[in-house]
Each structure stands twice: as C-alpha cells, then as structure tokens.
C-alpha cells in the first residue's frame, strides 16, 4: 500500500506533467489564500515569492499584449478565450498535434500556457478566414464522445422521413 506521501507525490507529478510546475504552484498558492486552511497557508508560504511574479499570462492576456489590431485581434481574442476555457486544444498533447498538422515544430512547451506562446507564432501567420473557422469549429475541442455523436445521428435520422415524404409528394 502506498504511503500518503507517495500518493501525494504521484498526484502532484500528474498535475505538473499536465500544467507545468509554475502553474500548479500558483494554483496551490491561490487555493491556500482562498480557503484559509492553515496547512495550505504553510504550503503557500513555502513557495518562492518569485514564482508568483512569473505567473504565466492567460492566452487572452497574451493576445491583448500582442502587436495585432482590428478584426484580426478580435478573432484571435475569441480564439484565446476558447483556449482559456479549454474549448480549443484542451490539452498540451492537442496543441502538439495541432502544430504538427500545421507544419510547425512543437518545441519549448512545458505546460499548456507555455504552449499558447508557441501556438500564437503559428496562428498569427494564418489568414483571418482560417482563424474564424477555428473559432466556430469543434474539430479541435478534444477527444470526441460517442454519446453526443449518437444523439446527433439520431436527430439527423429524425429529419429523414420528413425529407423522404417531401420527395415523394
């Protein structure tokens, strides 16, 4: 049976693998502040103060600071908002795959927020029309599930008899 410490280390490793050390540390610090839990306070006090200063910018904040204007900025902001809500490329593995499909090299990405910095370099080269497609498409929204897909097939099937009826009338 695993010790509590080993279990904690394993859980933390999973979190760090997915979000990166700094993002996890920042989230832990936030949790400690909001909960007022003394244990968490102690944990947050162990975090070096510099890590709070280096907290990653959200995707939206990165676009707001980027040197793009007008409609293009608007589209990129919409995409960044979807990224922050994890509706667009919800995991760092999705970002890697997306970059490969775009012919770019997925390097220098430790966590998902790091990944947006790399992703932005590729997105910024795309035409507005293609960016708009990403805003309105669910193709890059993560793994698909059969339940909703079955519902969509059933819904489409319900339209068919009416169409056939219309064709024969």
């Amino acid at each position, binding site marked *: 049976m695993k010790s509590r410490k080993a279990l904690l280390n394993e859980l933390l490793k999973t979190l760090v693998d997915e979000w990166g050390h700094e993002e996890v540390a920042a989230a832990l610090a936030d949790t400690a502040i909001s909960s007022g839990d003394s244990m968490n306070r102690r944990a947050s006090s162990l975090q070096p103060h510099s890590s709070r200063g280096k907290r990653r910018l959200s995707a939206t904040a990165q676009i707001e600071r980027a040197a793009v204007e007008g409609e293009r900025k608007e589209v990129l902001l919409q995409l960044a908002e979807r990224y922050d809500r994890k509706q667009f490329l919800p995991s760092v593995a999705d970002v890697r795959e997306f970059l490969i499909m*775009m012919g770019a090299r997925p390097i220098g990405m430790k966590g998902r927020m790091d990944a947006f910095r790399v992703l932005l370099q590729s997105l910024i080269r795309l035409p507005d029309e293609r960016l708009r497609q990403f805003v309105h498409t669910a193709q890059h929204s993560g*793994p698909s599930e059969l339940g909703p897909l079955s519902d*969509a097939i059933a819904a489409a099937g319900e339209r068919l008899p009416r169409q056939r009826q219309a064709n024969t009338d």
Partner: protein
Amino acid sequence: MERQKAGDLSTQFFSRDSIWILFDPRRHKKLTCRQLGESAMARAGGPITVCVINLKGGVGKSTISALLARHGHTSRGLDVLAIDIDPQANLSQGLMHNEYRRFLAGQRPSIVEVFKGYIPPTATSSAPKPLPPNGTFEVIAQAGTRSLQLIPSRFDFSDNLLSAVRPDPTTLARFLSSNFQHKDLIIIDCAPTESILTTAAYHASGNVLVPVKPEYFATIGFPLLGQSLNNFRSQNRGNHISVLGVIVNNAFYHGGNDGGPEKAQAMKEIRAESNKNGWPIYKNEIPHSRGFPKLMRGDYSYRGNAQYFSMFADEFFRSVGL
C-alpha cells in the same frame, strides 16, 4: 511477388533508425518547408488515387485511411483528399471528431450530395445549390497551400443512393477529375460490401490497398475482392486498376510472441491467397495498439505502439512514388 517473406518482421520493425521518423527534428524541418508551400505544384500525372478496401469488415480500413491521410499531409507535406464512401462514416468521425456532430446538424455537403450532383434545398434555402467549387468540403488541416480535406459520409448514404432512379457509378470519378487534379493523394475509404459504392471507388481509383487481420476468417474477403476486381476489369477494359498490396494489420503485441501459432497459420493462408491473386504483401506490419482508437477519437495523450504506423506509412508512400 511478395514484398517480404514474413519471418524476421520484429527485427525489421523495431529498427531504431526508422521508429522516430515522425519526430526526427531534421526531417521534420525539411518537410515543414514543403508544407509551407515553397514547392506547391500539382503532380504532373494528377493525383495518386488509392481505395482502401476489403470485402470483410473490421480489418482497419477506416483507421488506416485516416492515418495515411494524416501522415501524408503532416510528414510527407502532401496535398491530400480523403473520401469516405462508407455509410458508417467512421473515417469522417475519425478525422472530424466533435465537428462531425455540427456537420450533421448543419446538413453540410457530403458524399451524398456528390452523388446527387447538387445541394438540396434546406430550411434556410428554398432552391437547390451547386456543389462547393474546387473542394471546399471539410478542411481538416492546412499548412501553407497544402491541405488535408475530407468529403465526409453520412449514415443515410446508401439509402439515398439506392433510392435514386439510376445511380451512376462513374459520378465520383467525374467529380474528382473536374475538381481535384491539384491534389497529390486521394484516399477513398470503402464500405465492406459489394455494391455500386465499390464500383464507384474502382472507377475513381487506379490503386487498391487491402488491409487484413492475421486471424481466422482473414482471407474470407480475398476471393470476393478478387472476383469483384476481375468483374470490373472485364466490364471496363479502358480502366486500369491494380492492387498495391496487402497490409497486415493488428499483427502483434510489442513484447509478445508475434501472434503465436494462430497468426502463423493465418499468415500462411494470407500468403497463399495473395500469391494466387498476384497481390504483394507490405513488409511492415501494423501492430496492435490501444493508441489507434485513441487517435481516431482525437485523443493524442497516448500513442503507444501506434507510433510505429509511420514505418508502414513510409513503405506505402514509397510504393506509390510519393
């Protein structure tokens, strides 16, 4: 005739030089330049068109079609069109993922409309419309001027087609010849049945790829497919169609005993049937991996042995000169 004498597969399969082709940064950089369109020109002889077919189901046709299309675009820098003519639409779901639901809900153009020749009236448009010009169906990926596009299928495909007064099996070939001559590669995922859809795929393809699983019933579809191709050739003497090869899929577990005696028996039968038909067998086999269904679902968190698909893919692309 065989591309290999199956035997020392494992040694060749796991040679370290070729496993990481997809991830080799030097190679990737070189391909990136191609993908950015620096040499974006249509092939002189038009696209290489391949239909992936076996008249036995469950052999991996859709998975292989999807992964070859993706590999062709990402690792070879090709301009690719994938066509789903199977009413089960697994290729469409494997490339579009969650977007396939919106595609259905939005009644967007599919292979059904290609066979109909027009887009029928909808709730928002009371008049029929022409098909999308020059292949603006579904864009799965784009890098520079090269893209991976898909003509998706719907489950009512065969129903629609059979209800047409005189379904024409040359419709797809004519549509491709008018609209997709700029593509490097066209991959057609076929239904595991002998029907007008099969004939349509033959009319549109110069090449056939036959996936097979090394298990009992493996070669059950071979005589049917051989007969089907011979019938087509005798009825369409101007059409050239040849079998590129047989690809052994779901062949072994990494670290296992290479399938044991059951696989050995099945391979014997596959080799015998392939020789009888004059069909080559690809040297690289595709291993069993939980990574394949994950990739089809759009989950890139774990590839497992699915990463070795690139070894077959490279052999395939060499075999068609791409």
